[in-house]
């Protein structure tokens, strides 16, 4: 295998970092247009910026997770076909360019979170199929799969299934029945998030085992128990998104009951807390570990919120409010992005580099991200609670008056968002610059040998 083949994971991580930086810029524009809808009379309004932001961030997570799986595999199993992985990358590039071209032309046509013209879903699905084939052919020779291999395989398989299911609406049979169509839409959204979480939690598991040098972690009964509970939730807990939709009672009760099993995750985190504190002290100066610990704390915060929101009586007040946005942002930034940043620092920079130890600037960025994210999350929750009270009140103020009363919290949200984005952008830039420098010097070495 050539060095370029060995570094396919890094190519995905670098691409994902570029998308993160773009997503942050688009997110800021969306935030400004949310606060000042007529801002600057630009040709692109909120309807354009929101999908551009969401797609960039979703692709940051998906391509980042792909990079993590390839980089992780590199440590214990040769990749079946680096050529397939490269073809997969070109398909992604083709899809991303096409998607942004169609957004700028105002050619939407897709569903929420996947607003692009559905034709661009084809190269993504094909890229994912290549990924699945390459992965299974790579790991099939391993006699006993550690839990993170199971998690990666599950994430890959269920992403492909749910992504295909995401386009059932193109058939009139599904689209003509509004309630079923919407039920499937939220089944898909729930499962897709569950699928990329399997890829990322698998990565977090792999990194933990690697940093703590405890390979037994990946084979423990408890780890497999937690994996199957996660899989069970991926498959059946999505009903908690649609309690107000007049769908079948069994769908609503299944969502409710399965969601309540997440208390087990909660109990496990609380039970392990003392051990986690000791580990933090031990590995505090290793940057990737610190991001994993931050992700753990955000898991606790977001899991508590998710469990509460999954109780239909509570959901009645939070559904359709900014509490849901707070939860979505809290999980994508607090959990997914923290795990991905941990992976980027570990896989791109390497264990012994000084950037992974005590860099003052990076340390500052880390803490600014945590503080700004907390204010960001809190302001959305406060706006959400106020909207929840409004939507249950009788008589009700007009929608525009209610939105006007929330403006102060939206200002806090945008202000903290600017700080958060600046700090994340700085980290993204540092990682990309490092990767660029390494690539250029590697190329020089290869050229000089030739």
């Amino acid at each position, binding site marked *: 295998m050539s060095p370029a083949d060995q570094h396919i994971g890094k190519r995905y991580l670098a691409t994902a970092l570029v998308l993160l930086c773009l997503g942050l810029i688009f997110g800021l524009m969306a935030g400004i247009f949310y606060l000042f809808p007529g801002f600057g009379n630009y040709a692109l309004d909120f309807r354009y910026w929101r999908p551009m932001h969401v797609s960039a961030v979703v692709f940051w997570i998906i391509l980042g997770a792909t990079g993590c799986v390839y980089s992780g595999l590199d440590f214990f199993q040769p990749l079946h076909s680096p050529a397939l992985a490269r073809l997969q990358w070109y398909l992604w590039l083709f899809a991303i360019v096409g998607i942004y071209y169609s957004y700028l032309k105002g050619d939407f046509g897709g569903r929420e979170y996947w607003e692009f013209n559905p034709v661009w879903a084809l190269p993504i699905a094909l890229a994912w199929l290549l990924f699945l084939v390459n992965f299974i052919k790579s790991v099939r020779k391993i006699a006993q799969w550690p839990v993170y291999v199971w998690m990666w395989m599950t994430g890959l398989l269920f992403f492909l299934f749910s992504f295909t299911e995401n386009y059932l609406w193109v058939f009139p049979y599904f689209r003509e029945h509004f309630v*079923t169509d919407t039920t499937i839409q939220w089944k898909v959204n729930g499962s897709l998030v569950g699928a990329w979480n399997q890829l990322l939690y698998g990565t977090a598991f792999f990194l933990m085992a690697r940093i703590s040098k405890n390979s037994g972690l990946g084979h423990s009964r408890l780890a497999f128990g937690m994996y199957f509970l996660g899989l069970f939730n991926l498959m059946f807990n999505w009903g908690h998104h649609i309690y107000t939709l007049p769908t079948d009672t069994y769908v609503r009760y299944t969502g409710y009951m399965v969601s309540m099993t997440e208390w087990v995750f909660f109990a496990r985190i609380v039970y392990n807390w003392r051990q986690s504190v000791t580990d933090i002290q031990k590995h505090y100066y290793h940057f990737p570990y610190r991001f994993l610990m931050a992700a753990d704390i955000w898991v606790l915060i977001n899991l508590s919120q998710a469990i509460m929101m999954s109780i239909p009586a509570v959901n009645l007040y939070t559904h*359709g409010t900014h509490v849901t946005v707070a939860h979505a942002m809290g999980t994508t930034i607090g959990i997914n992005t923290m795990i991905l940043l941990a992976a980027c620092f570990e896989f791109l920079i390497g264990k012994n580099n000084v950037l992974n130890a005590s860099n003052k600037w990076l340390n500052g960025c880390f803490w600014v991200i945590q503080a700004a994210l907390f204010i960001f999350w809190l302001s959305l929750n406060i706006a959400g609670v106020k909207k929840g009270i409004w939507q249950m009140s009788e008589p009700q103020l007009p929608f525009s008056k209610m939105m006007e009363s929330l403006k102060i919290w939206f200002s806090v949200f945008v202000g903290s968002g600017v700080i958060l984005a600046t700090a994340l952008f700085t980290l993204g830039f540092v990682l990309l610059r490092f990767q660029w420098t390494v690539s250029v010097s590697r190329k020089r070495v290869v050229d000089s040998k030739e």
Partner: protein
Amino acid sequence: MILKPALAFSLLSVAFLTFSLSIYLKPGFVAAALGVEKDKASAGRLVWQKYNCQSCHQLYGLGGYLGPDLTNVYSMPGKGENLIRALLITGVVQMPAFQMSEKETDHLIEFLKQTDASGSADPRGFSILSSGMTIRK
């Protein structure tokens, strides 16, 4: 060792596929809402997506947060078909004036008529049971 996780994975997958199938088959057993032309409503859903209405508006509390929930806008006192048609042409402060064709407007209105006929999205219309579940009053 690999067999045990593989067996558990297979059993869960079969349960998941059965659950999914029960949802996919539903439209075949349910009659269309009275007074709604399902072909037009189905085309209207595509218009909703083409103009990315979901960026700002919700249906059953699902969607964007800039504008109001439109599930029952068709039958809401003081709103309804005429206001929808007018707003699509003129726009309001946050919402641009859309250049929709008359056919697209008709389809979109049929879609909103369908969402309205499917039920109420007003959370005040629910009661809370002792189990924590909610049901329509």
